[in-house]
């Protein structure tokens, strides 16, 4: 069988992510201590788990509506309004998905005709460009820069605009850099976006994990943006529910109407037990979410100071749970740095270029670990740097 001929060229052209490659390398080394995980270390809060158990006990295991349990969509509508002050109609403007990832996929497929361009700021989460390609679109990369604190600037958008530009992916708070777009940053880019006809796919999965005095602001809150924004979020990060596979998107009804067809034919509906449990998450977990956020924040300060003290410049991440220190001073590439650190000190961190070429010269360090774990890992990285110098 000629499998190459059998399988789609588009799919074969898509590469596995650099993260997977690094996972394969790290798996060959024993007793590794990892700072490479993109998911919370906290267990899902008990109230949520209990609700899932109750749902199973009652035998509520049938399909739900395609767009998700009405009760959950109502709770989501209230939750979104409570968090960012925007009203979305639970009947027509909110759809529950299998994680934020499915919502991202649906968005690209709903927007792209062959050849349509989608702007993707990098470094960023690894799924955007491959999913755009598989949806028939053309990813156009915007390289964000350290000197701008990895924020997206109006000029960077303007430079990449063409008549074929269909959408902009808006990945803030950002994985892997921890960059956040504050309200004044959003105002500036919105001014450029308003002059175009493109959609904004705002991936706000880390929105709840925004540190500092100002809360997370969605780009959909800025004037003229809601009508073109597909707001994507999920339960994985804020509620520590990665394995429950539950996300959602909110957008104007003409957009959700089309996206619903994709979701309905491909998925039917999100897992029922997860959906019932998610209602409890939205209504009973504010305290837990805040506690986890405070813990991340303490770790964030600890890790950033640790890197700066050992001479690896680390810009101040304001969101998510990653630090993105610069390793250029060592003269190594990101991949060399990570491989050598892994082999000599058994610490796994991810090379920055796994998140796009502009991540070269940086490494992603997850702080979704206990302080004790972080402390040990930082000590080992410091030893590694000393040995590099000698």
């Amino acid at each position, binding site marked *: 069988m000629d499998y190459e001929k059998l399988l789609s060229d588009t799919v074969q052209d898509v590469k596995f992510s650099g*993260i997977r490659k690094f996972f394969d390398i*790290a798996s060959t080394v024993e007793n590794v201590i*990892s700072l490479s*995980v993109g998911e919370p*270390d906290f267990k899902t809060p008990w109230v949520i788990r209990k609700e899932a158990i109750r749902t199973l006990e009652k035998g509520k295991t049938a399909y739900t509506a395609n767009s998700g349990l009405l009760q959950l969509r109502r709770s989501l509508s209230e939750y979104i309004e409570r968090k960012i002050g925007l009203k979305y109609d639970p009947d027509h403007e909110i759809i529950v998905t299998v994680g934020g990832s499915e919502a991202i996929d649906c968005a690209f497929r709903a927007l792209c005709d062959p050849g349509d361009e989608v702007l993707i700021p990098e470094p960023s989460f690894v799924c955007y460009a491959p999913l755009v390609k598989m949806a028939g679109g053309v990813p156009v990369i915007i390289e964000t820069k350290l000197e701008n604190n990895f924020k997206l600037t109006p000029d960077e958008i303007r430079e990449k605009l063409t008549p074929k530009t269909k959408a902009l992916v808006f990945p803030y708070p950002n994985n892997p850099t921890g960059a956040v777009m504050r309200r004044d940053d959003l105002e500036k880019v919105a001014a450029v976006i308003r002059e175009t006809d493109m959609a904004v796919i705002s991936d706000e999965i880390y929105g709840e994990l925004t540190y500092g005095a100002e809360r997370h602001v969605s780009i959909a809150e800025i004037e003229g943006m809601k009508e073109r924004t597909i707001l994507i979020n999920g339960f994985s990060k804020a509620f520590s529910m990665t394995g429950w596979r539950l996300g959602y998107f909110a957008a104007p009804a003409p957009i959700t109407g089309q996206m619903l067809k994709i979701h309905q034919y491909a998925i039917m509906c999100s897992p029922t037990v997860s959906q019932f449990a998610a209602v409890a998450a939205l209504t009973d977990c504010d305290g837990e979410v805040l506690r986890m956020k405070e813990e991340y924040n303490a770790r964030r*300060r600890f890790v950033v100071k640790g890197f700066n003290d050992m001479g690896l410049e680390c810009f101040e991440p304001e969101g998510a749970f990653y630090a993105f220190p610069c390793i250029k001073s060592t003269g190594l590439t990101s991949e060399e740095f990570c491989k050598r650190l892994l082999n000599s000190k058994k610490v796994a961190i991810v090379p920055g270029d796994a998140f796009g070429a502009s991540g070269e010269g940086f490494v992603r360090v997850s702080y979704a670990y206990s*302080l004790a774990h972080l402390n040990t890992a930082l000590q080992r990285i410091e030893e590694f740097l000393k040995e590099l110098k000698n």
Partner: protein
Amino acid sequence: MKGNDIMKKIVDLLRENARLTNEQLAVILETTEEEVAKEIKQLEENGTIIGYSAIINEEQLDKNAVTAFIEVKVSPQVECGYDDIAKAIAQYDEVDTVQLMSGSFDLSVTLRGNNLREVALFVNERLATLDGVLSTTTHFILQRYKEKGVNFAADEADERSLVSP
């Protein structure tokens, strides 16, 4: 953060890891090293923090060493109740903890010995013979699973994949 909150957080953090430096505590708590030093001094002076110790896996240190938990029944004395006898027991270096308990016995005593015989001798010759001790029941610890918040069990290992996006 208010003074009381900082104090409570410092206690929580030190309870978990007493080796955190003042500088590290300051970073974690978003305050100054001076503030941390001041709070810790106060906690030490007012007797909230009474010492710092390592959490030891005794098994690893010495295979023969044993730890015993002893239920002690005593007859309370006029005026001082259980205090005098509890203090007398606490004097012994082998004794780790002495606590007055509610329930079916009075004092709980834990102690470490280099071997079984040492503990047996201590109970027979020094503890049971004290004036006021009515009876003792000695329990030896067979296996430790968690010690001061540190879980020994392997199933508490990180379930997450080593590397993920």
